[in-house]
């Protein structure tokens, strides 16, 4: 298959988004290698975002694979949120402790347990996979709002330290993530996503795609654009924090 055929198959924007999340993941992993344990959760979260998005680079016919990627995506935002909460606790209590390997082990165990849960259950239908993705997007939306507040609180605590402006960069990243996942959830909640169109038409349900076509178009554009920009912002944030902590 040629590159153009491949890009036509998976969609150019999806390909760009996945590639950019790969870059963000690589930078976050590089950052976590030399940094303190508290950064490990945040870095691991961004790595899992790439793992989740990588599905779009090689979509599988097996619905369980799609479900697994969505579950991994959910775990990604949970890991990031956990990391930011730990950082906030540090900024208030100044307690630093623990080892990185426990973070890796906990995340790996959660991923494996989730995969095991999917495998022991019946093969998910298209609707089930869509439900799992909706849960993923809903989790992202709400935890991103929490993370934005957490970043704000952290910034207030570390305002005069060298790393403070790094958290401003992360707030921009999470704002873009909110737009990315928020718009995806919006489309899914109102049934304007491709998966619902497919499910509805297979079920013989009548849809009126032109009724709210402008809103749906804006939401899709926001989803695509914010998804790419969020990956760029994530890369940039980690690079910026790396520079601040040099």
């Amino acid at each position, binding site marked *: 298959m040629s590159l153009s055929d491949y890009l036509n198959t998976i969609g150019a924007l999806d390909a760009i988004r996945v590639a950019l999340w790969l870059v963000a993941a690589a930078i976050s992993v590089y950052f976590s290698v030399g*940094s*303190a344990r*508290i*950064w490990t959760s945040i870095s691991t979260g961004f790595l899992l975002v790439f793992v989740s998005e990588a599905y779009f680079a090689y979509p599988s016919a097996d619905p369980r694979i799609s479900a697994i990627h969505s579950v991994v995506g959910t775990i990604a935002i949970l890991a990031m949120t956990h990391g930011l909460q730990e*950082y906030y606790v*540090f*900024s208030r209590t*100044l307690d*630093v402790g623990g080892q990185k390997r426990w973070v890796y082990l906990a995340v790996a165990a959660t991923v494996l347990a989730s995969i095991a849960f999917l495998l022991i259950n019946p093969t998910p239908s298209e609707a089930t996979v869509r439900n799992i993705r909706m849960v993923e997007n809903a989790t992202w939306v709400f935890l991103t709002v929490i993370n934005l507040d957490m970043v704000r609180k952290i910034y207030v*605590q*570390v*305002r*005069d*330290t*060298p*790393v*403070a402006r790094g958290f401003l960069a992360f707030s921009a990243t999470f704002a873009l993530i909110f737009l990315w996942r928020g718009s995806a959830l919006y489309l899914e909640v109102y049934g304007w996503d491709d998966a619902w169109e497919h499910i509805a038409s297979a079920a013989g349900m009548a849809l009126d795609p032109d009724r709210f076509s402008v809103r749906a178009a804006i939401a899709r554009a926001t989803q695509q654009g914010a998804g790419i920009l969020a990956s760029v912002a994530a890369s940039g944030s980690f690079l910026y924090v790396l520079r*601040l*902590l*040099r």
Partner: protein
Amino acid sequence: MYNPGVFQLPKGAPVVTQLSAAATPGPQFLSSLARQAITGYVAYAFAASQAVLLYDGGRMISATLSRGGGRVSGLEALTELFRRIATEPGTVDVYRLTPDLVMCLHALLQGEVLHKDQDMRLVDAKGLLAKIKADRLNGCLRIYTQEKNALIFYRDGVGIGFFHDGSDRIETQINESQRIAGLPGAKLDVFSTRPPEELRSFDLLEMVNVEKLWDSTVRAHQAQLEKLHADAAASEQRNLEQKLKAVHEGLRALAIEQIGKLGGALVDKELLEDRAILLDAEKRTAFLGRIEAGAKLVAGMSKVKALVAQMREKIEAELSPLS
């Protein structure tokens, strides 16, 4: 001659000389002399005072202590003597004398002063001697100038001995005493006391519980020493705490300068509970390790390393004189 602080005393037959006063606890020593039925005197010499204890047949008939131009006697003298034995270095000498000479010394130290500072040019020497004889004086005459002293001892109005500076024994000739009496500016004191038989009825060792007096003196001295030590230790502790507080504030300032208020909070968290960890090398290293671990989350490695190095230098500079 022995100098009791005012004038010198004749040395009799030595029993003990230049013994360390602290080596012989007061009560035991004084009681041993009583058991030996000694007749003579015990002389204690300290840096700024002297004490004389007169014994007659083992009875302590007199205790006097001279200090700072003044003199105390009796219980007060014993109390002061015991205090000095316990607190300062000194020597003790014991000399034997005859009972009559002990009586004369008693007159000199504690007797009634019949005449004082009389100018020899104005004294009717013959008349005085006749009166001494008539009154059967028990005591002594002291004839002295600025440089010289002479003593004439009397028992029942009869001269029993003469003593002067530079002599090492009681003499029977009045020559030197006469010569001193004839010197310009010579003066005369006359002292009187009771006969030895009456003096012997007085025994300070029986009137005063010297054991208790000694114990209370030693305890008081001990308590004073302990208080001094405690005060010194407390003062040293206060100084150390102030020093540690100053170092703490210095470290906090360094941390704030390098990594902001959170750096100061890191230092406070480690040191507010126990600043003494800065004095122990291992704990100090652990403290700097924790500061480094916390600082790495908010600042770059170069700043953190610089901060830790500055802190280490500051601690060593301020606290190494104390270790």
